[in-house]
C-alpha cells in the first residue's frame, strides 16, 4: 500500500462524526458565553462604533455635501484603517485570548478537560466558537456601516449598491472580515496558550502587522494584513507615509491572497494543538 493510500485509510478511520458532535457541543456552550458575557461589551462597541459615526454623518449631511464617490473612499478608509488594523485586531485579541485563558481565570477549564474530548478537537471547537463570534460581530458592524453609508443617499445609494459595484464591495469587505478573524484569531489563540499575559506579544504582533510593509516582500508574507489589503475592493488614495499602509509593493494573486491567511492560520493552529496537548490545570498559579 502506498503512503498516500495509507494516509487516506487512516483519515477515513477517524471518528469524524463523534468529533463533529463534540465540536457542536463546545460551540453551543461557548457561543452563549462569548455573546452574552458582560466583559465583551467593549467588543460590541468596537464593532459598531463606525456605524454610530456614519449614522451621525448621515443625520448631519442631509444637505448632501458628500458624494457617493467620496463616501466610498471614506468607507474604504474606515474598513482598512479602523476595522482591519484596529477593531478586528483588538476584538479578536479580546475574544480569542479569552477562549482558554478565560476558562483558567474563571477556574472552569477542568470542565472541558474532564470530558472524553481530544484536546485538539477542544481547541478547534473553541476556535470555531471564536470565529463565529468575531465574524458575527464584525460582519454585522461592517454590514450596518455599509448599509448606513449608502442608505442615506436614497435611490442613488440603492442604485450604487444593487446596480453598481456596491454589492461586490460589500461581499469583499465581509470576505476580508472573515479571513481577518481567522488569521488574527489563530495567532491570538496560540499566544494565549503560550503565555500567561498575551498583551505584550499582541502589541508586538500589532507592530509587526503595521510595519511589515517596509520589510522585504518575502517577510511580508508572514503578515495577515499583507494578504487582506490586496483583497480590499476600494483603494485609498494615499500619499507619502500613508501609502505604506495601503499600497502593496509585490501583490500576489487573488487566490493566493485568500489562501495566505488560511494557510497561516492552519500552521499556527497546528502549533496551538501541540501546546494544548501539554496544557495542565494549575489554577493556583494564576
Amino acid at each position, binding site marked *: 500500500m502506498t503512503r498516500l493510500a495509507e494516509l487516506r485509510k487512516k483519515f477515513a478511520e477517524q471518528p469524524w462524526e463523534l468529533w463533529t458532535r463534540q465540536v457542536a457541543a463546545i460551540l453551543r456552550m461557548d457561543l452563549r458565553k462569548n455573546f452574552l458575557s458582560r466583559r465583551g461589551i467593549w467588543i460590541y462597541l468596537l464593532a459598531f462604533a463606525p456605524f454610530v459615526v456614519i449614522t451621525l454623518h448621515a443625520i448631519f449631511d442631509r444637505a448632501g455635501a458628500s458624494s457617493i464617490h467620496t463616501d466610498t473612499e471614506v468607507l474604504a478608509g474606515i474598513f482598512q484603517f479602523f476595522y482591519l488594523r484596529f477593531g478586528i485586531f483588538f476584538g479578536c485579541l479580546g475574544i480569542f485570548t479569552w477562549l482558554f485563558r478565560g476558562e483558567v481565570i474563571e477556574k472552569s477549564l477542568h470542565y*472541558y478537560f474532564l*470530558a472524553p474530548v481530544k484536546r485538539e478537537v477542544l481547541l478547534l471547537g473553541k476556535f470555531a466558537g471564536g470565529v463565529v463570534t468575531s465574524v458575527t460581530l464584525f460582519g454585522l458592524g461592517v454590514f450596518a456601516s455599509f448599509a448606513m453609508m449608502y442608505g442615506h443617499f436614497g435611490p442613488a445609494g440603492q442604485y450604487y449598491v444593487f446596480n453598481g459595484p456596491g454589492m461586490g464591495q460589500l461581499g469583499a469587505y465581509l470576505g476580508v472580515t472573515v479571513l481577518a478573524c481567522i488569521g488574527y484569531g489563530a495567532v491570538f489563540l496560540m499566544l494565549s496558550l503560550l503565555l500567561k499575559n498575551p498583551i505584550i506579544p499582541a502589541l508586538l504582533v500589532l507592530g509587526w502587522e503595521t510595519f511589515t510593509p517596509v520589510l522585504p516582500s518575502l517577510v511580508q508574507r508572514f503578515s495577515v494584513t499583507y494578504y487582506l489589503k490586496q483583497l480590499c475592493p476600494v483603494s485609498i488614495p494615499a500619499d507619502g507615509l500613508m501609502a505604506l499602509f495601503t499600497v502593496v509593493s509585490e501583490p500576489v494573486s487573488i487566490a493566493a491572497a485568500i489562501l495566505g491567511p488560511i494557510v497561516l492560520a492552519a500552521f499556527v493552529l497546528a502549533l496551538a494543538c501541540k501546546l494544548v496537548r501539554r496544557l495542565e490545570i494549575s489554577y493556583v498559579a494564576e
Partner: protein
Amino acid sequence: MSAIENRIILENVSKFYGEVLGVNRVNLSIPPGVTGLVGPNGSGKTTLMNLITGLIRPTQGRISVLGISPDKPEELFRRVGYCAQFDSFPKGVTGFSFVYNTLRLHGLDDRESTRLTFESLERVSMTEAANRKVAGYSKGMRQRIRLAQAICHHPTVLILDEPLNGLDPMARAESLELFQALGKQGLHVIISSHILHEVDKMSDQVILVSSGYIVAEGQIHAVRTEVKEHPMQILVRCSDPNLLASRVFAQDHVVEAKLNDDGKGVLVRTRDADAFYLLLNELVVKDNIAMDTVAPADDDVNSVYQYLIGAENKTI
C-alpha cells in the same frame, strides 16, 4: 483481563511544581473496590488524583488507568469520572445543563443525554433543584451536582476528591452508601477524605500520604500489622479479667495489660498479636476463662494515621 487492564498503576511517579514537591517516587497498584486516600492538607492527595486524571503531568514516571494513559483524555474519560475539588462552574449553568453539557461533550445525542442527566441527578437527590442556577446552590448541593457529573456516564473508575465536604449528615450517609454500592459492583472508587472514621467505614483499602510520599497502602489490618513500633492494642472482655491480666503480663511480647474501669475487661498492648491470640486459646482451655469479646482496639484508619503520620498533622 490482564492485571494492567484492571488496575490503576503508578510507577515511580514524581511531580514537582518548580522546586516545590508535589509527590515523590510514588509506586501504586490500585485494585477495584473502594480505596481511601488519607493524608493531611498539602500531603499530595489532590496532586495524585490530578495526575491519575491527566489534569497535570508527572515530572517523571508512568501512569496507567486500566491500561489507558492519562495523556489520552478521549479514551480515559469514557471510563473515568472525576469529582474534583474545584468549586467553580461555567458561568450561568443550571444543575441540569452542567451534567447535560458534559454528556453532550461525550458525543451523546439530546435524548440519551437528557435521560442520563435525570438518572444521575436522581442518584444524588438533585432532581428538584435541577433547573436552578448552580451559582445559587449551597455548598452541599454544589458537591452533589459535581458528583452527578462524575457518575453520569457510568464510569468504571470514580475518583472523588473530598466528596463529603459540605454535605449534611443525611446526604453524607446516602453518599457513603452510594460509594460502597459502586465499590461492590467492581468499580474502582478512590476517595480522599479528612474524615477518618468515614474512610474507615467505606474503604476496602487505604493509601496514606504524607509530605508527598506514600507512607502505607493496603488493607487497613495489614497496614496496622506492619506498624511494628507501636504495639497492637487488643481489648478482651472475659469472665476473669484479673487472672487474664496476670497471665498475659508474664509474656515477653506483652507491653501492657490494663484492667478496664468497669472491671470486666483487659486492654492489652502486645508486640506480637498472633502470639497473643494463641495464648488466649491456651488460657481458655487451661484456666477455663470464658471469653466474651476479643477485638483490636487500634486496628482502624484513625490509629494507623496517628502512628504513621502523627497527631500534629491531623486535620479533621
